[in-house]
């Protein structure tokens, strides 16, 4: 089982479309400094570092090496983890394992990206198989569009249902000063009216049917850092540590055509594994808040069904009933989520950091209106990979 481990500190940069005032190392350093200050620690207190991004977005390999002076890794054990969109949660899981193993007491997890430094679509294509996929498929948007198209067909979901997810994310982002997209014009307009405005807008460019610009995440520059500490130290560092209750990940086939597009089987299995470990029988009732890696709108309908918050095809109803809004039964993405900020290597780690803030009760204007006993955080990447980390107020059994 390993030692009990908690998140004790979190820092992030402001997520912005382009940070030309800093290079990658300097961007990483900003997040690390904020996280250390948050935990009232110095770099000397950190025993090891895990760092990750997606090399091909910046075209620089070995971030573990060249960022050492910014990450704080000089003369420390450092390990790089890169798993695509899931990088941030994989970095968190790896840092957790470092501490749970008993070999390190305090480990710093870092995720970052400067998406402004390359062509995001072009770089994502380098993750596709060169022989079987690249000649006849260009980019991530089309793959997600195929999933959305199938979900609409199978369950009768509409473009308005998709837009309802986008509206929730962008409204929540207005409470988060760190979010990249702040659509101030949305303030004070009811969600159903916003949905009509978005779906009816001629400026809302159709990218790949059924996905419009409003259905997609932005491309962002940003970094995040999360500090994990072992039981015995964690309670001394943080007034309310966010304890790791359980974590799990699942991978699937390599070729896009072989992914089960009908359901998201990886997030389903990873979620079930986490629920089993944490003894959760009724996820919707027992979990207080979610920070989910939803890269596009329809994921916010289908994948919440796969996690087990409702039955197949019932996602839209949950959305329209307001269950996942800030004042709903189980708010999803108080931060504004991935559709409001997507510095890819940082994105999934931000889910963990934001989940921890909710447990600690320190999320400011985006804090949900209740005591958070359990926060469910997820990562998504590659050809349907899923990472889950469940954080909570009580020490795990």
């Amino acid at each position, binding site marked *: 089982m390993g030692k009990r481990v908690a998140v004790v500190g979190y820092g992030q940069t402001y997520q912005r479309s382009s940070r030309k005032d800093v290079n990658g190392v300097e961007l990483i350093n900003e997040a690390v400094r904020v996280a250390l200050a948050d935990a009232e620690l110095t770099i000397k207190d950190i025993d090891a570092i895990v760092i990750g991004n997606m090399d091909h977005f910046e075209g620089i390999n070995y971030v573990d090496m060249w960022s050492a002076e910014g990450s704080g890794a000089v003369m420390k054990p450092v390990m790089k983890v890169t798993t695509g969109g899931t990088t941030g949660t994989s970095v968190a899981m790896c840092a957790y394992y470092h501490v749970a193993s008993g070999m390190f007491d305090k480990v710093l997890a870092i995720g970052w990206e400067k998406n402004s430094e390359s062509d995001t679509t*072009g770089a994502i294509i380098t993750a596709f198989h060169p022989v079987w996929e690249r*000649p*006849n498929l260009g980019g991530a948007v089309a793959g997600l569009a195929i999933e959305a198209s*199938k979900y609409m067909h199978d369950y009768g979901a509409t473009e308005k249902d998709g837009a309802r997810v986008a509206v929730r994310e962008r409204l929540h982002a207005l409470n988060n000063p760190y979010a990249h997209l702040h659509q101030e014009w949305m303030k004070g307009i009811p969600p159903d009216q916003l949905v009509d405005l978005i779906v009816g807008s001629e400026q809302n460019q159709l990218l790949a049917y059924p996905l419009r610009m409003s259905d997609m995440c932005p491309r962002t520059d940003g970094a995040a850092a999360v500090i994990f500490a072992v039981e015995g130290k964690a309670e001394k560092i943080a007034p309310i540590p966010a304890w790791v209750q359980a974590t799990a990940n699942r991978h699937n086939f390599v070729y896009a055509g072989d992914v089960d597009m009908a359901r998201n089987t990886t997030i389903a299995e990873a979620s079930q594994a986490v629920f089993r470990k944490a003894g959760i029988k009724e996820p919707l009732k027992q979990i207080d808040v979610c920070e989910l890696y939803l890269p596009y709108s329809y994921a916010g309908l289908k994948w919440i069904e796969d996690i087990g918050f409702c039955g197949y095809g019932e996602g839209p109803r949950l959305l329209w009933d307001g269950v996942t809004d800030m004042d709903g039964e189980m708010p999803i993405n108080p931060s504004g989520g991935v559709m409001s900020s997507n510095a890819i290597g940082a994105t999934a780690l931000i889910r963990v950091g934001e989940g921890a803030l909710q447990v600690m009760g320190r999320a400011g204007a985006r804090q949900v209106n209740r005591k958070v006993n359990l926060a469910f955080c997820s990562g998504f990447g590659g050809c349907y990979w899923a990472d889950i980390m469940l954080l909570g107020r009580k020490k795990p059994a």
Partner: protein
Amino acid sequence: MAKARRKARNVVYAGRIKVPYAWSVGATGSRFLTALRDDQEIWGVKCPKCKRVYVYPIKNCGECFVPTEQWVKVANVGTLESFTVVHYKHDMQPRKRPLIYGLVKLDGTDGALLHLIGGVEPAKIKLGMRMKAVFARQRAGSILDIQHFAPA
């Protein structure tokens, strides 16, 4: 001294790296591509344990973790499981926009192929449609030897 204090514009340095990669397809994939090019036939591999038929061929069944070994000729026709019509522009798109991608499940196979759809107006596409492989006239031993899938 005044110059040193001057606010400098943030400099952006453009890279020049062009790496000419060349990827080994492997014997299993080469056999598939050769049949596509020379015979206009689609072949899959069958897992001896779970009996799944894989197209494109994979040497090992990931589910069972055993070698697939047995080759089976599969149909050129299948069913459209999903699709999208792409309107955005990107240099990596294999065709001029608007272009259509579809998920085609060939008869007798497990999984599907994510490939181009042609010979049909976007408005006329329906999920569940029967689709057939249309082979390129000039074939070079690549997956684009299937030019696209069209309604059967």
